[in-house]
C-alpha cells in the first residue's frame, strides 16, 4: 500500500533529499529510509532509474567521484530542479491539506 502510494511522490522525495546536499544513490536511499523512519522502504534498485530520469529531465546532474577506492555517482539539484522542487512542494501542501480536511484529521 505504502509502496504504491509512494510511487506518485518519489520525485518530490528524491528532490527534497538532494536539496540539502549532493549525495550518491546509496546515501539518497538511506536518507529516504531514515527520514521516513523506515516507512519508505522501497526496493533500492528501483530508485536508480528514477534518479536517471530526473537527470534526463534536467532536474538533477551527476558527477563521478572516487571514495574509499570506489567510483560513486553523486547527484545534485540543478537550478531547474530547485524550481521543480519548489513547485512540487506547493502542490503537495495543497494536496495534503485537502486530503486532511476531507478525512477530518
Amino acid at each position, binding site marked *: 500500500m505504502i509502496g504504491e502510494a509512494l510511487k506518485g511522490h518519489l520525485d518530490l522525495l528524491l528532490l527534497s533529499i538532494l536539496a540539502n546536499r549532493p549525495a550518491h544513490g546509496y546515501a539518497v536511499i538511506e536518507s529516504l529510509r531514515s527520514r521516513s523512519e523506515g516507512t519508505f522502504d522501497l526496493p533500492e534498485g528501483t530508485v536508480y532509474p528514477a534518479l*536517471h530520469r530526473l537527470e*534526463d529531465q534536467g532536474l538533477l546532474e551527476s558527477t563521478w567521484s572516487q571514495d574509499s577506492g570506489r567510483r560513486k555517482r553523486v547527484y545534485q539539484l540543478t537550478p531547474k530542479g530547485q524550481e521543480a522542487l519548489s513547485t512540487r512542494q506547493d502542490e503537495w501542501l495543497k494536496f495534503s491539506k485537502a486530503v486532511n480536511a476531507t478525512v477530518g484529521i
Partner: protein
Amino acid sequence: MSKQIQNYLRALKRQLWLKGLFNADALDEVESHLLESVETGIRRGLSAEESERQALEQFGSVKAVSRAFEKERNYIMQTLLLGIAALAGLFSLYVDTRPTWDDTGILVGGLLLVSGLLTLLGHRRPWLIGLAMGIWIPMYEIYKSHDIMMLVVLLIPLIGAYGGWLVRLGIRKTFHPA
C-alpha cells in the same frame, strides 16, 4: 566481490541488454551500491554471506529492477517517439502540399512505414502515434476544402502503427514468453 553479487550483476546486465537498456555506468552504480550495502551490513555485525543476501534482497530482484529501468526509460522514449511522429506527420503535410508532388503511393508508403517503425521501436499507444502522424493532412484539407472525408487519411498511419505494434508484441512473446 562474491559469486552471489557477480551472478546478480551478470543477470541484471543480461536483462538490461535484452531490453535494449544496457548502460555500463548504471551497472557500475549498482555494483558500487551493492558493495557499500554489504560493507554496511558487515559493520553492523552480520556475516559476509548474510550481509550479501540482505543487500541483494533490499536491492530487489533482477526482474523488478530491470522493469523499473524499463518503465523509467519508457517515459522518455514515449515522449521522443511521439515527437518524431508529429514531426514526420508535419513533414508529410509539407511534401503533400508541394505543387510538384504527385506521388501519393510514396507518401502512403512513408506514413505506413514510419508509423510502423515508431510502434515497433516501443511506443505503447499505436492510436496516439497514428493520430500524431496522420492528423495534419486531413486538418489542412478540411480547412482548405471542407472535405470531411479526408479524415480517411488518418487510417493510413493508424494501420501502420497497429502493424508495428503487433509485430513488436509477436517478437516479445517469442523471445520473452514470461
